[in-house]
Each structure stands twice: as structure tokens, then as C-alpha cells.
């Protein structure tokens, strides 16, 4: 098991290095940030001066070495568009909002998806089940931004119940509802389907049937045994979908003017703010890689061949 864990961690490091290489290459190739920074009235000499002032006239390989050194020492460079604050500081200031959003989305999807899945599993092929499954498929098919737009249309424009832009410290928890729902919407369907299928499998397993025959109430059987089986696949699903969640967060944050990491990323990419983009992608990728490692290790631990081998 230890060997496996070490191997997986090693793979993780290699993956992270590849990611940073990709990002560095893509950014440098896509254009010079100074050009994108200054207003149209800036003269050619202004541009040259700015480039010199920001140290962007060094050769590429030198910049790459500095960049790598920076990651190892924990300095992620200085932002170009955020008042020359350290890129790490800019990233940290936006991270909480995205974490709040993604957590809320996941919580919403679990709170809604799991009971729906249980309901569907306990009444297989009934009307509820078919309705639920259809609803789930529809939910998974709706584009994230469409859900967001429809929610705004309904709850802000027509009903006026919920605020639609700003983030938690401005709006409080009420402002979290719509973005979380639009982000978590498609996950509800996924969770529901996974829970339903694993529970159906579990419920038809011989020992469950036996336990029921012994007279243990169905509810206990349901929640204690069958649901436990669903926990791992749900977690795996979450881990696998985490990258998609981050992508979805970008669009959701744009629609709801949510002050998070996703919006920061998009704006920094458009502005070619190298340091900030590199920092955000690094940490987002790190989260994804770590999650994947955790999932792999969990499965490995569950598999006695690997655990004991």
C-alpha cells in the first residue's frame, strides 16, 4: 500500500509539473501583456517603457526558470492588473468566494440528489422513478448558464425575491442560493442516478434480502446498509466532476458577478496577467490532482490486493 501511495504521489507531482509547463507555454505564446494593458492612446514609447518597468524584456528561458523557482519558494510573482499586488495574495482574496460557491453547490446537489435517488431506488420503475429519471436527464442536459439565466429571470426579475449580484459579504446567504443552485443543478441528476443504481444493486444483494427476511425494518436496511454503499461512488463522482465544477463556476461567477477565482481567471487570461493566471491554474490543478489521488488511494485501500500487497 505504501508503495502504491508513494507512486501515486510521484505521479501527482509529475502531473503538476506538466500543467505548469502547459500554462507557461500557452500564456507566453498567446501574447505580450503590456500591449493589452495600456489604453489605446498610449504611445509606442509608453509601451516600451512599461515593458521595461515590468521586467518583461527578459528572455523566455530565463522567465521560465524564475517561474519554477518561484513556485518552489512560494513566490508566485507580481500581478500586472491588480495594483502590482503579489499574485498569491490576489488569488487568496478570491478563493473563499469560490469555495463557498462550490461547497454550497455540492451540498445542494447532495441534499436534493441523494433522497431523490433513494426514492427512485425504493420504487423502481414506478411513476416516481420514471419521472425522477427523466428529470435527472433534463437536469444534466441543461447548460449551466441557461439555468442561471432562468433563475435570474424567475427570482430576481419577475418575483424579486432574491438578489442577483455580488457575493456573500454583500448579500449574505440569500445571495448564495441562485448561484449554488445553477452550479449544482446538473450534479443533482448525476448524484441521483448513482445513488439509485448502487442502491438497487445493494438492495438485491443476497445478504440484504436475507436481512430483510429476518424482519429488520426496511428503513434501517435502506439507510444503514444500502446508503453506505452509495457513499463511495458519490464521492468518486464528486471528485471526478470537480474539474467540471470549477469550469462551471467560471460561468456562474460571471453571470452572478460572484467575486471568485473563476472570474479572476477569465479576466486575467484576457489581460494576459501571467502571474495571476499561473497562480490560479496551479492551485486549481493542485486541488484536482489531490482529489484524484485521494480517490485512488481510497479505492486502493478498499481493494485488499493493493492494501495488503
Amino acid at each position: 500500500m505504501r508503495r502504491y501511495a508513494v507512486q501515486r504521489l510521484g505521479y501527482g507531482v509529475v502531473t503538476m509539473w506538466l500543467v505548469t509547463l502547459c500554462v507557461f507555454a500557452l500564456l507566453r505564446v498567446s501574447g505580450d501583456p503590456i500591449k493589452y494593458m495600456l489604453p489605446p492612446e498610449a504611445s509606442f514609447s509608453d509601451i516600451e517603457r512599461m515593458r521595461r518597468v515590468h521586467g518583461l524584456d527578459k528572455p523566455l528561458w530565463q522567465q521560465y526558470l524564475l517561474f519554477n523557482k518561484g513556485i518552489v519558494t512560494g513566490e508566485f510573482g507580481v500581478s500586472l492588473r491588480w495594483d502590482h499586488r503579489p499574485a498569491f495574495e490576489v488569488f487568496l482574496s478570491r478563493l473563499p468566494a469560490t469555495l463557498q460557491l462550490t461547497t454550497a453547490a455540492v451540498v445542494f446537489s447532495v441534499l436534493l440528489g441523494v433522497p431523490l435517488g433513494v426514492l427512485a431506488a425504493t420504487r423502481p420503475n414506478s411513476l416516481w422513478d420514471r419521472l425522477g429519471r427523466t428529470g435527472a436527464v433534463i437536469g444534466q442536459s441543461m447548460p449551466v448558464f441557461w439555468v442561471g439565466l432562468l433563475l435570474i429571470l424567475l427570482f430576481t426579475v419577475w418575483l424579486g425575491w432574491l438578489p442577483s449580484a455580488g457575493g456573500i459579504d454583500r448579500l449574505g446567504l440569500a445571495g448564495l442560493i441562485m448561484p449554488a443552485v445553477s452550479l449544482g443543478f446538473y450534479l443533482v441528476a448525476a448524484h441521483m442516478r448513482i445513488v439509485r443504481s448502487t442502491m438497487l444493486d445493494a438492495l438485491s444483494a443476497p445478504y440484504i434480502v436475507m436481512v430483510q427476511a429476518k424482519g429488520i425494518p426496511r428503513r434501517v436496511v435502506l439507510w444503514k446498509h444500502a446508503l453506505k454503499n452509495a457513499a463511495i461512488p458519490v464521492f468518486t463522482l464528486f471528485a471526478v466532476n470537480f474539474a467540471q465544477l470549477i469550469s462551471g463556476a467560471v460561468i456562474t461567477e460571471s453571470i452572478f458577478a460572484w467575486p471568485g477565482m473563476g472570474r479572476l481567471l477569465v479576466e486575467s487570461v484576457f489581460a494576459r496577467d501571467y502571474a495571476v493566471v499561473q497562480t490560479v491554474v496551479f492551485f486549481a490543478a493542485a486541488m484536482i490532482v489531490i482529489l484524484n489521488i485521494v480517490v485512488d488511494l481510497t479505492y486502493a485501500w478498499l481493494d485488499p490486493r493493493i492494501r495488503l500487497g
Partner: protein
Amino acid sequence: MKGTGSEVIASVPPPLQASEVGLAAMVARVRNALRGAPTCSLVILALALICAMGAPLLAPSSPVVGELADALQPPGGAQHLLGTDNQGRDLLSRLIYGARISVTIGLLAVFVAGALGTAVAVLSGVYKGWVDVVLMRCTDAFLALPFLMVAVTVVSLLGPSMLNVILIIGLLRWMGYARVLRGEVLRLTEMDFVRLALVAGASHWHLMRRHVFPNLINTLLVLGTLELGVAVIAEAGLSFLGLGIPRPLPSWGTMLAESQQYFYIAWWLPVIPGLAITLLVMASNLTGDWLRDRTDPTRRQL
């Protein structure tokens, strides 16, 4: 797919019976193949395909030229069944041409991603060793890259166009194929018939071409159908952010993006294109699910 090698190789069909010949037999075979099919979804997919191929014939008017005086008509009019947009363009025509764009992009993106993913999976699974390790690390790395970051960068380099959208989606979706197919390939290479072939001196390339690849087609079909929906949504997302199909071409995503400021006066502009996207994606999801169940009867229906 479980089973021994002999089931997988079964490529020699049994001799035809008399009752299996003829139109009736053909119809019977088709009906058998379509057993349990989600009819609505297949109809929707067929409709999308028809729109894609015959858009100029089907659309009642031009998707690009509109009469400004007719702008923002609600659906239900005699001239414009689904209403008009802010330029007076017929929404139904734009929807049909938009289907053409979505289907084309979806199919081509699936093709690109599928080809790339299959190549990686086959190379990984057949050669194993460090080739496998390197390719899998690359797969992980790509999985960790934010879709939008790559999209913005590619678009800013190459400009927004249909080809670049296909490229972006293809480049960022191949990992799913790679992972799933790699598992299949690994399983295939463990089987007796493959080992026998290797012992008999078959080259890796021969192996990949004759034995591995044909057995992946089923899974590829399933994955491809499911990924069609993903590609459609990805394209809509890119167009929504202004990184996709240039105007005035009627991509459904662009139509959604444009509709935002007309919420208050023209509800059909955001609702109808979004509905179209949802229906197409739903159709692809349900069909993919059905295909998966058909090709792997041991798995319970989800």
C-alpha cells in the same frame, strides 16, 4: 465487457437460414436492434441531423437577413412560427441553421477527441511500461487544465471560428475516451488470443489494428454519443462568452448570449434556444445510455 476470447473473436457469422433473407427479415433485424430504444431521443437526433443536412431547404427564411420592422415578434405568428429576434430574423430559421452548426461541431469535435483519445489509449495499453506512465500523466495534466483558460488562449491566438471551436473542444475532451478505453485495451491485451498473436510474432501495429481497435468500437460509439451532448454544451458555453462562432451565424450559444438583455421584453429569445440545446443534449444522453445498456447487458440500466 466480460467474456472469454472466443466470444470476442466471433466474427464468422452462422450460415443464413431461408427465413433470414428478404425485406421482412431485414425489418425484423432492425426492430431487434432497436429494442427498447428511446424513440423520442432518436427522433430528436434524426431531426437534428435532417436540419443539419437540409437547412437551406427546411428553413422558411434566411437566418442572417431580417426585416428590422418585424423585430421582436412573439411566437405564434403566421409568418414567424417561433417569433423573431431583435433584428427581425426568423427564430425558427435560426434554430434550424443553429442545429446545423451544433451538429457539425458536435460530430467533428467528437471525432477529434475520439481519435486522439483512442490513439492515446491504444498506445498506452499495448505498449504499457513507461509509454503508459507518460501518456497517463499527460492525461491527468490535461484533466487539470481549466477548459476556459485554454479556450481563451487558443481563440486569442487563432481567432474565433468554427474550426477553432472544434479544435478546442477536441483538445480538451479526449481524456475521457483515453481513460475508459485504456481500461478496455488493458483487458483485451490480457486475453489469450492476443498473447497467442504476440507469441506468433505479430507486430504491435498489427495487434492494434486487427484485434484491439475493432473491439473498442462499441464503447467508442457509446462514449461518442454521450460526448455529443457535452460538445454541444461546450460550444454553447464558448459562444456565450464570445469565444465561439462569429456573428451573424446562428449558434445556439450566441443566441442565448444575445438574448440576455431582452429578458424583459422577449422571453422566447432566451427560452427557445436553451430548450433546443437541452433537448439535443438530452437526446444524446438517453441514446448513449441505451447504447451502453445494449452493448453490455450485464450492466443494470441507470
